[in-house]
């Protein structure tokens, strides 16, 4: 992403349906050729935002720019966008070819140009054998490919995806996920992708915008989002199995910063922002299951003793639930390592990968 020119720019966007406010003063800049994922649980406003960008919903306030052109009042067709819907939204009475050409015919494009574009899109998506079929005669994956093709033939700057894979089964979903990524790599268009699936978000995105009740909580690349969540919501939303949260307070023992919870002191040596750790502050310690080391893997000076409560073997990994000072902590270990319920283990916390949140504001310390 060396090209820093913006493709889509959203300024101070608000939308409310009557008394219900869906989006509030939202600002977002999307770079040229960027793959941006809007991630959030249902009802967080991510689809609403996408519909605003597409021009299918009128914002109450604010502006939308696409390619430095103010398109706030433009019709969807004049915005230079193509959109792919969750339910495919293929016109059922038209063949695949007619589906692809409909928009171009409406725009009054000459026939040979239409044929050229359809041939190109069909080639990219490998749907040439399907062109004369009707949507009802296609499988889910084929339908979604045609839906992507319909955006492709429009030859637009920005692609909008509204949960395009949610209607597919797990296997097809992962296949098409790879295809969409490949498509982005070859076309280098700007893509805005709405999903509630964090795996899709982490695998596809250049940057992820995590949304909650109409507000973007964090906008960063997937690695930063995963390892340095800005607040407790982001930390809990991303990651499966989810992050362990321990409630407690910051303290100082023998000149060293520690986190005290239910009588246990956990050394904070290695945590990035150690100067902000004022003693007495109520805090939440967040640790991902893979950042807790067990027995032989423990490298930190400090180790704690815990008792195995439940074991969940997941094939490649093994998730064990440990009891520590009244907390239940999940730890991810290799699939081959097995523990008996009730066994005592030594665990160490990797503080360089930990997150501390203020107990009141839930913001990262």
């Amino acid at each position, binding site marked *: 992403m060396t090209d820093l020119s913006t493709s889509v720019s959203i300024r101070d966007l608000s939308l409310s349906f009557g008394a219900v406010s869906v989006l509030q003063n939202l600002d977002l800049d999307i770079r040229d050729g960027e793959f941006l994922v809007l991630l959030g649980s249902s009802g967080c406003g991510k689809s609403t935002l996408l519909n605003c960008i597409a*021009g299918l919903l009128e914002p109450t306030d604010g502006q939308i720019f696409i390619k430095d052109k103010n398109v706030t009042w433009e019709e*969807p*067709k004049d915005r230079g966008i193509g959109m792919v819907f969750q339910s495919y*939204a*293929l016109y059922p009475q038209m063949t695949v070819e007619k589906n692809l050409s409909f928009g171009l015919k*409406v725009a009054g494009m000459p026939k040979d140009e239409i044929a050229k574009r359809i041939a190109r899109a069909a080639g990219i998506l490998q749907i040439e054998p399907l062109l004369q079929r009707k949507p009802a005669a296609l499988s889910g994956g084929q339908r979604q490919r045609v839906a992507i093709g319909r955006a492709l033939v429009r030859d637009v700057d920005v692609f909008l995806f509204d949960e395009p894979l949610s209607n597919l089964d797990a296997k097809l979903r992962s296949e098409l996920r790879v295809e969409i990524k490949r498509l982005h790599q070859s076309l280098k268009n700007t893509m805005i992708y709405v999903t509630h699936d964090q795996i899709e978000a982490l695998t596809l995105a250049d940057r992820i915008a995590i949304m909650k009740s109409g507000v973007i909580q964090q906008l960063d690349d997937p690695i930063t989002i995963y390892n340095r969540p800005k607040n407790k919501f982001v930390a809990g939303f991303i990651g499966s199995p989810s992050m362990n949260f321990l409630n407690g307070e910051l303290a100082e023992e023998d000149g060293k910063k520690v986190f005290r919870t239910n009588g246990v002191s956990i050394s904070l040596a290695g945590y990035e922002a150690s100067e902000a750790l004022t003693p007495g502050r109520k805090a939440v310690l967040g640790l991902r299951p893979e950042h807790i080391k067990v027995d032989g893997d423990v490298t930190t000076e400090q180790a704690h003793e815990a008792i195995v409560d439940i074991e969940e073997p997941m094939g490649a990994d093994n998730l064990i639930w440990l009891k520590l000072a009244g907390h239940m902590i999940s730890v991810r270990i290799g699939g081959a390592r097995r523990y008996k319920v009730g066994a005592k283990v030594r665990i160490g916390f990797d503080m360089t990968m930990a997150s501390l949140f203020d107990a009141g504001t839930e913001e990262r310390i």
Partner: protein
Amino acid sequence: MANISTLNATGAAIDAVGTELASGPRGKKPRKVLSRRNVMIYGILGLAALYYLLPLYVMVVTSLKGMPEVRLGNIFSPPMEITFEPWVKAWAEACTGLNCDGLSRGFWNSVRILVPSVIVSIAVASVSGYALANWRFKGSELFFSILIIGAFIPYQVMIYPLVIILREIGIYGSLTGLVIVHTIFGMPILTLLFRNYFAGLPEELFKAARIDGAGFWQIYGRIMLPMSLPIFVVAIILQVTGIWNDFLFGVVFTRPDTYPMTVQLNNIVNSVQGVKEYNVNMAATLLTGAVPLIVYFVSGRLFVRGIAAGAVKG
């Protein structure tokens, strides 16, 4: 393959135990044809069918008898001598007022009323239903509510004002006036029908068409209409039978020489002069009722096929 070997193994086991297991219940449980349940269901259905078909039988039979035979009074007995004279008379010779050309005049009047009324009312209602479902505008819900309230007001209340309005416009007594009246009174129920159908189509189709750049009429004509065959068939059935069977508007808003078939039937049957020709009356009634009947028989099939075609998800 595994299944077959398991089966074989089971078979062997059964042989070993004896024939007791093999002779036990297996497959579909046999049911008696003359069970209490069947007798009740088919008995009641048969009685109901008889109840509704008997009058029709009497009508058909009577219309095929000559007057001397009708006078014998055996209404259930089949005609001893079949004659089509009453049918011919009902269609072409029966007198109403000054005209003596039978029901044929009324039939063509009804056709002239029916065709434009059905087309105009369905065209107007489908477009309004589409607009209400997909192009929400300020006050669209209020407009829709008012329209629905219109469906609950008995329309006899509105006849006198309507007569005055049509007279002032200068189309009272003409077929145009009657077509307008039928269109207006078809609006509430038809608009409701179309709005609900269009609202049931996936909203994303409409969005996709907008992104493709299609406008109001293009989306209506090229996306929505081809998907709406079933609801159009329903609307046509409703309107054809409703308008064909209408008597009140026909008698109020037309003149004697443009009376629809129903009004003319009434005039034939209720004429007080001379002998009551029951056979002619029966034939005339059957002729008048034929059109809705045919519509039901023909479109009923189309209706089912239309629903089946519309059920395929895109």
